[in-house]
């Protein structure tokens, strides 16, 4: 029941943001069709920007939701892991050359190798959490520090550059299709996870383990394996995000790529009304939460907030959210509400 109500939280936030923009500048909602620099017809406008640049976050929110549900903690190494996966991809595509126009390997091969590597790093986190029983945030702190260094090391600290038109499709537009490719990829990921949730028991298992590990064990589940799987799936999401991120710039900057994205991904899960302590989750709400955050980011940019000052504003939003969702505060608020309207009887 609560599960379905959950989606109203990001929805309400979305409506508030939309109204705010509508009042401040109605042109925010204008979508135009025009030629882009490559000479194709593409859609543009702030809303399209949100859908486009929110893709990475939406994809990560999928994996982060699962990890949160199963382990009751969050993975803070996703940004660093994106750097690793992106670096691996470029290493395969460029070999040891600094700049290529002919790819050394098909993109799909590079992507698959990146997937394997990202999933291995996911498994590393997962093993620390599931088998060594280290708190998820501490366990992933290891990769959080080392990740970007490992990424740099993979390419020997070079910043390979690809000047190949076809490689930009994943982070830009495919000729003839006016919708940004990242959004298409994100939708594809959503469809995949929807199918996975429908045709496997992943949802039930992760929630059971997150809610009650003892019961789950007595019902024949292996909680450690389920936790590990959730981290591996997050690794897969990381690889997809890396493809988009690298394609956007046809290169990589180890210290900048996917910077602070872990914060946004965790925020997306929280905004979706999911308990950060694990258990029940609503995937759609998390994804919607991701777009709400992108909406917020785009709005802040519009008001000339500089990108490196953004975290301060978002931190305020996070704190407000966690304070309002803290059990103690909720209890106090409901007591207060009761006091304010003593005439109304509470309906259970």
């Amino acid at each position: 029941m609560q599960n379905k109500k959950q989606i109203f939280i990001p929805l309400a936030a979305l409506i508030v943001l939309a109204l705010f923009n509508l009042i401040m500048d109605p042109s925010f909602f204008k979508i135009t069709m025009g030629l882009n620099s490559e000479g194709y017809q593409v859609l543009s406008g702030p809303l399209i920007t949100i859908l486009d640049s929110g893709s990475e976050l939406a994809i990560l929110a999928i994996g982060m939701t699962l990890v949160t549900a199963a382990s009751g903690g969050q993975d803070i190494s996703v940004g660093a892991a994106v750097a690793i996966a992106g670096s691996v991809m470029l290493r395969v595509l460029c070999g040891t050359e600094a700049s290529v126009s002919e790819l050394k390997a098909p993109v799909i091969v590079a992507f698959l190798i990146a997937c394997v590597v990202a999933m291995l790093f996911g498994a590393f986190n997962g093993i620390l959490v599931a088998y060594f029983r280290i708190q998820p945030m501490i366990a992933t702190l290891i990769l959080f520090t080392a990740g970007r260094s490992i990424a740099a090391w993979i390419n020997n600290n070079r910043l390979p550059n690809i000047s190949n038109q076809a490689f930009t499709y994943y982070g830009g537009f495919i000729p003839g299709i006016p919708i940004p490719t990242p959004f298409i990829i994100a939708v594809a990921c959503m469809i995949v996870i929807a199918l996975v949730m429908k045709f496997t028991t992943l949802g039930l298992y992760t929630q059971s383990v997150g809610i009650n590990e003892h019961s789950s064990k007595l019902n024949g589940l292996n909680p450690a394996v389920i936790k590990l799987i959730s981290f591996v799936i997050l690794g897969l999401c990381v690889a997809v995000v890396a493809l988009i991120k690298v394609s956007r710039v046809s290169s990589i900057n180890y210290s900048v790529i996917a910077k602070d994205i872990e914060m946004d991904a965790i925020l997306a899960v929280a905004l979706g009304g999911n308990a950060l302590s694990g258990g029940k989750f609503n995937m759609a709400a998390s994804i919607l939460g991701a777009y709400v955050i992108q909406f917020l980011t785009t709005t802040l940019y519009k008001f000339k907030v500089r990108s490196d000052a953004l975290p301060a504003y978002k931190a305020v939003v996070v704190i407000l959210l966690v304070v309002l969702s803290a059990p103690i505060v909720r209890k106090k608020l409901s007591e207060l509400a009761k006091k304010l309207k003593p005439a109304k009887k509470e309906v259970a």
Partner: protein
Amino acid sequence: MKNKTSQNKFKNLSDTSLLLTITIIVFFVMYIGAIIFQGSGFLKAQTFFDILNDQAALIIVACGMSLVMITGGIDISVGGVVALVSMSCAVGLDYKGMNIFQAILLALGIGLAFGLVQGFLVAYLEIQPFIVTLAGMFFARGMTTIVHTDPFNVANESLVKLKDTRIHVPFMGYVNKVGNYVPAYIEIGVIVALLVVAITFVALRWTKVGRHFYAVGGNRQSAIMLGINAKRTVFLSHIICGLFAGVAGFVYFLHVGSGSPSHAAGMEMDAIASSIIGGTMLTGGVGNVIGSFFGVLSLNTIKKIVSSAGLGDAWWTGITTAAMLCLFLVVQSVVMARKRNAEQ
């Protein structure tokens, strides 16, 4: 019973002293190894003092971090606070006409404010410390660029004078190639750091409140049953940690003499790593600031070894830190598991 107690000396060592002993041994083994394999550089006392000079701020931050970790929490906002403090002090001194004392007060005030807010959220609203301080870290980093966008060196004369103050250490100097005696020196920040370590150590060991930190971290429920105000203890730990971050911010500022949004990048991580290497348990209740002090030294000795081995590139530092951290996490869990087995 008698054979039980005499059977295992190792068992009777308290967890804190056991892990502290390991840390100190590791540090000395590492340092001696460095002298043997990498030679003269490490034999110079100044090499050692340079580690102290460079890491004075980290030592202070690690003390605060250990305190929070001993009570079973964590604070990852410290790096951001250090950056915010140094930027604020830089702007204050150069643009707002502050004097040194006002800058110091500003530094302490910022640290205290972070400690108070975060401590309140963690202790009294019972929100996970990681989420709270993660937000704190992003807030501090964001605020740093809001205070001032670009890195700049401070020109304020009294600060530059203070920054360049060198305290000579007798007998530790060396004779350079030209034949002149070069005295070894430490900076003011090191004195502050050593004072912080000493005060924290004494407070943790010889005051009742200090022991409450351990009790709350060891078993919160029991601590409450024993009549300890657990919430207040957790609150206090965050306040002190915030305050130390403020002090560290000023010491850092004094060392680099500039403000920059990228200052103290990853310092929270180094502080956590140092605390863990120094024998502070993530689960709380076990730890020691002397250990954290040696943790900082160990971490930076290995970084120095890595860089003087010709792996100067920046990425090796991150990988080394993470590897050390990973190693000590595993060592901790193995040692404690064996100890537990020995007890049963």
